[in-house]
């Protein structure tokens, strides 16, 4: 009965007056989206503008610092690597791979995770116990180790990276979806639909699934940054994408041997990678603050 009195104080507290700032985090959302759009556009059309040939080697253009003129008269804005490849071209190609791997992994992990989470959360009982124990085992196993193990056996390839990362990332989606399904299933409006005679499928489709969309999207935004980082880590270890499709991780690993002579090979792709992941993090945080503050621990 005093709930409104209390609501007034509790809901008001976490943020200062937002009247001057518009809706929660809209500036951060705009920033994150803008950066991501730039990356996506660069990844999509960049390789068309700056040609990249994975097998070309031009020994006369090896290890040129950023801003150098190359033997064919072109300008290497970000310098060249140990075989004379233009670093910018390589990075644009890398962006394409990172984003593609990230999206494909998310789609796969998300589909598996949401399905498992819905089943566990909605039906409960032994199905929930079995699925969630499975998720617990998965969580109790450091995911990068699992990824390393599978990748070591499967060998480096883009498809394998996606599979490996999806296997180690579905749990987050499953847990969030399960939690949401569980709380939604217990809400009175679901009971109300049941008293009207609604069947299981209708309840999942009309009541439970819509309630899961916002948190799943938030998780997806946060997770895609993690996935891109993990992909780069695997590639750095030589277990990710093969040398013919050099992702940022591969380029950074290659540059390690030339740190003394060519610092840019390792540092520049790292900055690009970190900036993308930071932007995804900013966007994810802002979306979470706006749509689902309960997911803070992610």
């Amino acid at each position: 009965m005093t709930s409104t009195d209390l609501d007034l104080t509790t809901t008001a507290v976490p943020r200062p007056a937002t009247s001057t700032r518009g809706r929660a985090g809209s500036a951060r959302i705009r920033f994150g989206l803008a950066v991501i759009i730039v990356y996506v556009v660069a990844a999509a059309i960049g390789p068309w503008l700056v040609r990249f040939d994975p097998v070309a080697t031009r020994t006369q253009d090896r290890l040129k610092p950023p801003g150098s003129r190359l033997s064919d008269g072109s300008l290497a804005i970000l310098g060249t690597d140990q075989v004379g490849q233009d670093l910018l071209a390589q990075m644009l190609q890398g962006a394409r791979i990172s984003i593609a791997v990230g999206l494909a992994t998310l789609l796969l992990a998300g589909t598996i995770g949401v399905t498992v989470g819905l089943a566990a959360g909605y039906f409960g009982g032994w199905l929930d116990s079995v699925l969630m124990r499975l998720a617990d085992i998965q969580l109790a196993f450091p995911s990068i180790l699992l990824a390393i193990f599978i990748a070591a056996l499967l060998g480096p390839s883009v498809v394998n990276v996606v599979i490996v990362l999806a296997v180690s990332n579905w749990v987050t989606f499953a847990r969030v979806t399960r939690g949401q399904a569980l709380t939604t299933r217990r809400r009175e409006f679901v009971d109300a639909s049941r008293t009207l005679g609604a069947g299981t499928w209708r309840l999942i489709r009309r009541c439970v699934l819509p309630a899961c969309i916002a948190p799943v999207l938030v998780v997806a935004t946060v997770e895609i940054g993690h996935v891109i980082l993990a992909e780069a880590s695997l590639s750095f270890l030589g277990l990710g994408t093969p040398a013919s499709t050099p992702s940022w991780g591969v380029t950074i690993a290659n540059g390690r041997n030339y740190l003394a002579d060519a610092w840019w090979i390792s540092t520049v792709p790292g900055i690009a990678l970190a900036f993308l992941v930071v932007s995804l993090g900013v966007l994810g945080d802002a979306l979470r603050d706006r749509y689902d503050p309960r997911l803070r621990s992610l």
Partner: protein
Amino acid sequence: MTSEPLLSVRDLRVEFSTSAGVVTAVDGASFDVRRGETVALLGESGSGKSVTAQAMLGIIPKPAGRVTGGSIEYDGRDLLALPATATRELRGREIAMVFQDPLSSLNPVFRVGAQIGEMFRKHRGASRKEARAEALELMRRVGIPAAEKRLDDYPHQFSGGMRQRVMIAMALALSPRLLIADEPTTALDVTVQAQIMDLLARLQDEEGMSLVLITHDLGVVADVADRVVLMYAGRVVEAGPIREVYEHSAHPYTAGLMGSLPAIDGPRERLTPIQGAPPDLLDLPSGCSFRPRCAFASERCADEEPVLLGAPGRPAPHSSACHHAGKVLTDAP
């Protein structure tokens, strides 16, 4: 009962910043609490009664909420003008509070004995052993059976009624002169509510302290309160001795509340509820906030905000903030 007020709230204003805008939760509330008396602070959702209590204790959640005007004089000192350390010293020692939901109000990770004993340890510098003995004594006083055994239990191991007794024991630890109870029985069952109200009345009698009972339930306080202060949309709309106010309501809101209550005896009649919904604090009407729900409303009510004045033709301490108080009094059954 001396007439000298222990606590005197004057023109209190409290604002909250919410995502939807700034809300005036308390808008110029004034009332007194005299020594040893029981005052009921009555109101529905959004009336500002709980925020008023928080302001009295100096625990308005910051930074969203802030007191923007008025004074709260306690024993001659303005609490709002005192430095933070001074008001903190008063809390627990002079003014104590019991909250609505005893489960969330007790710390789940500490034993109840330690939570009660903390009052003695932190305020009086008592040793662990002394604090424990004091806590035990208090638990017995508030009627917790097998208190020695329960001293080392955690809040989740208690029932709702027992938890509220623990809260009361904690509040009474340092024999405060003013106890504020914010909806102390709302979360409890009827039979347990009767136990807690009985306990509060007994303890007040023993301690001779002043008691402010905050509630939405007109019936709960009728037996125990000396005076009642009714709030609506952050303002005091009617105040006076409880029987006088209940039996001769001089504000249409009070009269409406009385008409909304189904009776426990006598013939069953159709209820005469108040029209409309409780006020939206973000979008209050001009003049009298109750105007849109009021059968007596006139043009004057839209233009001029009514102030708290003596109810016409009624004995002195009864006041009402209504331009049509006289008509309300004569029209009532």
